[in-house]
């Protein structure tokens, strides 16, 4: 059974149709790559999944319910959407303490996730002084705080060094092996090819293909498949 579902999601900003009747599903224990060129509607779609943007038509469900109807949503869904969603004057630890407080999560988890993302030594520094990679790691710590069964990650590898990218890949694969569903948006196609089980490619707000990665890359590299599918402005 799908744990992440988008059904006919549609969103328009003024005259621009950002997302057009977009549907897909992600199963438990699956890592799905969510790919598309800039302006394809990926971020808007992820935000609709998370209840931050209201769709004009269609709906999205996680575990069968709209995000806004989830009891204790942080316990079910962890999300990394942008690297700047932290108050610059607050320390990493205090940011996580607020999240733990609001979600009713044991404060002992804070040190666990800080250690997991490699931020233990920087935990009591203000976020203002963090690099982009450190902010991404803090975002991941926030997402993992309640050990959720769904992860939604928008460009999580941005700013990470090669070691961090490898660490992220191992983390995602490890979580998926434990049953976590991961939807991951990225432009780093070589990395995506090594990480995901399936790929959803969107263009002009519509899904142009959803298929297992092995099937898509059986005869060509993911990059070539991607460029071939997104070069057609009308979609495939």
């Amino acid at each position, binding site marked *: 059974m799908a744990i992440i579902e988008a059904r006919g999601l549609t969103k328009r900003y003024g005259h621009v149709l950002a997302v057009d009747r977009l549907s897909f599903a992600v199963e438990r224990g699956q890592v799905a790559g969510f790919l598309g060129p800039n302006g394809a509607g990926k971020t808007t779609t992820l935000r609709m999944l998370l209840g931050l*943007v209201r769709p004009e038509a269609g709906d999205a469900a996680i575990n069968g319910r709209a995000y806004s109807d989830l009891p204790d949503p*942080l316990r079910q869904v962890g999300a990394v959407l*942008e690297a700047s969603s932290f108050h610059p004057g607050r320390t990493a630890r205090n940011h996580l303490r607020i*999240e733990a*407080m609001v*979600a009713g999560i044991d404060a002992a988890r804070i040190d666990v996730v800080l250690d997991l993302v490699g931020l233990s030594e920087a935990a009591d520094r203000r976020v203002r002084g963090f690099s982009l990679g450190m902010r991404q790691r803090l975002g991941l710590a926030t997402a993992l705080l309640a050990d959720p069964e769904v992860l939604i990650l928008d460009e999580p590898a941005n700013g990470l060094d090669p070691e961090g990218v490898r660490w992220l890949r191992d983390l995602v694969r490890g979580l998926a092996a434990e049953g976590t569903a991961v939807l991951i948006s990225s432009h780093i196609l070589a990395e995506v090819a090594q990480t995901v089980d399936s790929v959803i490619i969107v263009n002009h707000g519509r899904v142009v293909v959803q298929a297992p990665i092995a099937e898509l890359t059986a005869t060509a590299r993911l990059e070539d498949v991607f460029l071939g599918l997104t070069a057609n402005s009308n979609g495939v």
Partner: protein
Amino acid sequence: MTRLIKGELFKLRTTRLPFGLFAAAAGLSALFSILEASRAGTKSVAPLSTAAGLNNVLTGGVLALLFAAVLGVTISSGEFRHETATTTYLATPKRSRVLIAKSVAGACGGAAFGFAGWLIATGVGLGFVAADGYTAQISDATLARYAAGHIAAGALMAAIGVGIGSLIRAQLAGVLGVFVWAVVIESVIGSMFNSIQPYLPYTAATTLAGSVLGGAAFGPAHGASSSASPLPFAAATALLAAIAIVISAIAARTTVVRDIS
């Protein structure tokens, strides 16, 4: 809701801005109280040996109410200034609950601002009275009522500020709006239309805190004689609470439900 309020209170304690606003409120309350005390008994200003003279000094503490409103504005608009609204609404997708929690947390902070304003102005006033060898002409019961008024007015002004910040979202515009409204618009309207002066929000907050009508106005309107009477304690409290609720309700129906993109 308790967890959410605790989280919002913790947010207040973990950034510098609320402490900076508190220090500004306390510093200006002290400055204005000392200035009022220093000019007591000169020209047409009542001396500190009278209730009116001491009351003028206590008015210096109502400046903290203005900063309580600013605190409220920063609590809600800060989520957009620092782009933390995404994280906040992911943790609590029911946005009206976030607004309520912010109002409660703001009210707690605002109450502390109001109490500090009262404490400083009362300390300055009684200190000058004692130094001049007078006996305070304001009873302990009245001083206690002023303390309650400062606390209630601070809490409600902060709650109003949270609503304004939610409605406007732009922090600088919200903060400037609060100052312009209280310092310029209320002073002008209050001096032109005496009958509605008691119902103006900042004026009502200051009279709730013990100031005479027009006593906390700025510029030529300061201390202008008014034919109207200040609202009774309960009525002023109800008015400010109603304003906070109406502004927050409008925000909850309009800006709060907007897309976070």
